[in-house]
């Protein structure tokens, strides 16, 4: 039952997000671009930091 409710909740959120995306994408394409772009900038710069950790061999003396 809880799983079902959770799925229903997620489904509702999805529908709302879709409607929002369609409306804002139609009326205000740049607003839509801002939402998508900001998420992208945050995630890519975060990925850059994680990549840094992967590049580092755990010695404090290595080049940065």
């Amino acid at each position, binding site marked *: 039952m809880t799983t079902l409710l959770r799925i229903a909740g997620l489904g509702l959120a999805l529908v709302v997000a879709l409607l929002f995306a369609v409306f804002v994408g139609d009326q*205000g394409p740049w*607003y839509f671009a*801002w939402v998508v*772009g900001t998420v992208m900038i945050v995630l*890519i*710069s975060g990925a*850059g930091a994680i990549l840094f950790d992967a590049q580092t061999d755990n010695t404090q003396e290595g080049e940065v």
Partner: protein
Amino acid sequence: MDLINPSVVDLSRFQFALTALYHFMFVPLTLGLTFMLAAMETVYVVTGKQIYKDMVLFWGKLFGINFALGVATGLTMEFEFGTNWSMYSRFFGDMFGTPLAIEGLMAFFMESTFVGIMFFGWDRLSRPAHLAVTYLVALGSNLSALWILVANASMNVPDGAHFDPETMRMTFDSFIRVVFNPDAQAKFVHTSVAGYVTASLLVMGISAFYLLRHEHRQFAARSFRMAAIFGIISTVAVITLGDVLGRMDYEHQPTKIAAMEGLWHTSKPPYEPWIVAALPDDAKQESYFEIGVPYVLTPLVTHSFSTPITGMHELEEQAGPRIESGITAVAALKRYSETHMAEDLAIFQAHEKDMGYGFLATRHAPNQDVSAITDEELHNVVEQTKPDILPNVFVTFWSFRLMVFLSLYFFVIFAVAAYLSLKKQLERFPLFLKLCMWSIPLPVLATEFGWITAEAGRQPWTVFERLPTFMSASTHGVGYMLFSLGGFTLLYSIFIAAELYLMFKFARLGPESHGEHDPENGTPSLSVIAH
């Protein structure tokens, strides 16, 4: 009708420009740094590495110092419309007040409430919950910017409101058109990502400072990496949106785009050069020492190779009939306000779209009353009013150029920084690191020039083609203005001194720990910065 003392108008403009530019020294950093903090904290929550929490704490400290001044100086802005621009607020407040109020209700409340939890709630919230709070602060501060820019765009492109002769003001008629005003959209994204650029360069510059001194290397290198990537994408976005805004001005504010490009005469596509540098002379209405790149202007502004851009001389000529029609409109409006005759209303409505130009002619009318202009004087008044439709070309032209040059410089510096950081070769180029460090204040300059371009270019109007600036101010005496101007100058100077002192102090002090605490052991790295 007696006009406001011109020096009071100038002082009011000066005070507003001073307080707005000062406010805007802190805002971009808030807009960008909140999302950078959110990015850092995301990495912390995902990887669980203490060093990313240290990054959030340290950059958060600098954010806090800056945030306080942003909030404080923002208060001034909200009240200054009422204290210094009474006529403007009454004339346009029905529409203009709404986005400002929504800003308070929707964005500023959210930002201010959660910022307390963001600073104080580390030990009281789970990591994901705290991360959510950080995102809410970031979203709140940017939504603040959204509503302010919606309001600002409505001054530049008054959409969603019409003039009502019964109430003598602009009446609000479409919320959707105000919010989705294309100018507002482009302005918001342009300003928000300009904030990202500012914050990126601050983080990058201070990190470069540590790398140069070989201090906090792991901390600084990670911060640098994130900032460089954040910055390069944002710079691309800022330039793209700048281009969109330019086209918006071309469509809606021909006087602004002509002044920005120093275009005295209508352009001759496709050869017309883009002027890189020149000395525009407002009084003589021509430019000296023009240096241009041919074939660039037309595609840059119009995104085509054949459309001409109207020059300022031609715009003046086109304004002539509108000024004449506007004078008829204002005279009819004044009669209507006294007698309420249907025929006056009909005359007014026929000329309504030119009303603003009639107000603009007030300064040159006998006794500052356009209804007293005789047929013999009409030609003279129109001729005198024509040059008034142009903004100050020198200021608009150069602030625009400086902004553009700086943004190109940011593009280069972030590209190099991202490349070197990804290659992990930063420390081999100390000169470049120094350059990053010294570039910290430049984005602030660029954003200020952006404001000057947008607002100086809007002149002579507060509400474009509806209400001239000289009519918008409150009717204060010069003494009142000197009192407030002196107070603001004094107070703001103290603030900036205290802010810079604290910023330098904490930047020199550096982060408290560099991730040496193992997050698995759960030893919190809380120590005392402020004893």
